[in-house]
């Protein structure tokens, strides 16, 4: 399976190694993510998936090799790369309302003050939280809080969305609803998405491509292109023979890894 040529990649990892506290976390990471691509990364816990994300975000620097954004090396966090964390409760400001939390991103990017209110309303509407604009995060359900975090990320007008097991802490029904919302948002904004999960089916359902990782140290194992038609549908897509085939192949890989 051919990777995107480096010159058309938005984010590229070139022979990246990461050592933290004397321990080798990631090794030999090579991948080029095309603009607008939805890349899923799966793997068991402890294979450095979160570190992969932090490298892409510029929160960590590689020990070897380099990470580039639009051809230029990543030196630190960029305002057009947004991160959605799994622990939404800790990533939101509990003392600000939903509107206030979205506002934080607008304040950070220096969005013109007179247009902020409108933009906040727009984003709240997009994720379906308009009725809860003045509520505090601890008044919202888990799913709503995660939506709020996504909305705050969208307020950055990101070119890239990095999502770290964003639905791991949610129940199955909410998870499915949010999966579809993320797909719709990605399609609408044309954002490039790097989606980390340990849920195989979720990875296949969402992505254009899925990469499986092995742990100790974390490295890429196999990658599959996902040719399922878009827009995806929770019922029909998951019944497609291609979906089931990919699922089995991926399962075999992961099972092999778990030894």
């Amino acid at each position, binding site marked *: 399976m051919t990777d995107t040529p480096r010159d058309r990649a938005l984010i590229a990892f070139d022979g990246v190694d990461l050592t933290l506290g004397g321990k080798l976390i990631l090794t030999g990471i090579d991948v080029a993510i095309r603009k607008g691509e939805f890349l899923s990364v799966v793997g068991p816990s402890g294979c450095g998936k979160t570190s992969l994300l932090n490298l892409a975000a510029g929160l960590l620097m590689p020990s070897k090799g380099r990470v580039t954004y639009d051809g230029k090396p990543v030196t630190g966090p960029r305002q057009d790369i947004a991160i959605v964390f799994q622990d939404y409760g*800790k990533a939101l400001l509990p003392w600000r309302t939903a509107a206030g939390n979205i506002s934080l991103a607008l304040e950070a990017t220096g969005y013109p003050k007179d247009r902020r209110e409108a933009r906040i309303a727009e984003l709240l509407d997009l994720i379906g939280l308009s009725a809860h604009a003045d*509520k505090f995060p*601890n008044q919202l359900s888990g799913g709503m809080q995660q939506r709020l975090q996504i909305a705050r990320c969208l307020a950055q007008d990101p070119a890239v969305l990095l999502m770290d097991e964003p639905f791991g802490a949610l129940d199955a029904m909410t998870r499915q609803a949010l999966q579809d919302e993320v797909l719709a948002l990605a399609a609408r904004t044309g954002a490039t998405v790097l989606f980390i999960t340990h849920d195989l089916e979720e990875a296949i359902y969402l992505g254009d491509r899925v990469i499986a990782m092995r742990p100790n140290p974390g490295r890429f194992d196999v990658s599959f292109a996902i040719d399922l038609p878009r827009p995806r549908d929770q019922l029909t897509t998951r019944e497609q023979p291609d979906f089931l085939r990919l699922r089995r192949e991926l399962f075999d890989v992961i099972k092999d890894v778990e030894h």
Partner: protein
Amino acid sequence: MTALPTLNRIGWLLASIGVGLLFIALWYAVAKARLVSPVFLPGPERAWDALVYGLTEGDLREKTWATIERMLYGWLLASLVGILLGALIGVSQVARAYVEPTLEFLRPLPASAMMPVAIAILGLTDAMVLAVIAFGALWPMLLATVHGFAAVEPRLYQVSRALGLSRREVIWKIALPSAMPDILAGMRVGLTIALILAVVGEMLASRPGLGQAILLAARSFQSADLYAGVILLGAIGYVSGTLLSAVEAHLLRWRNAHT
């Protein structure tokens, strides 16, 4: 444990006040029957008379005000220093490593124990009392602030980096609101200590105020005046505590918001 008989909030408040009045009636009965010598326990009506007289024609008003002023100035000074210093120390792990052990050691030290030292340096003056009040109120404030700033959710710092917030923005929009519950708790303790030290200081240094007034009343066996003064001190404690709690409840309303 046992279920609450159905009475609404006002009903319970009135019943509670009723019980309070019962206690006062008990006080009256005991004093009237001279079960305890009137030198030790004047009747409530005598204490009330002394209170009213002292506030209207006597000098209780000035004395009360003197004590309140002392308490407030010392407390405000301590708050200012405590919060600023606490913020500086709290955000820096390095600073905390140097300072925290000393603070932990000084924590159980009674602030009143500094009084002899303060007298040695400043003599029996108003400045001495104010210094002791400020010093005494400083510690809980400082410790609480350091803790508040040190305990900021690390995820929020990551979010700040991803959003590209400036250092000033991080302190003002993330660290300070996050530390606010601790800071306010420290201020509440500081206020209690400030009142105590104001009273002790007035007693020791014979500075005009309620502390000195009740000590003199005891020495001249004016028990009614004594009790009147004690009631006033209780009132100061109650009112200042309630006001601060109200401010705290408003600033921290996000904490008590329910789904």
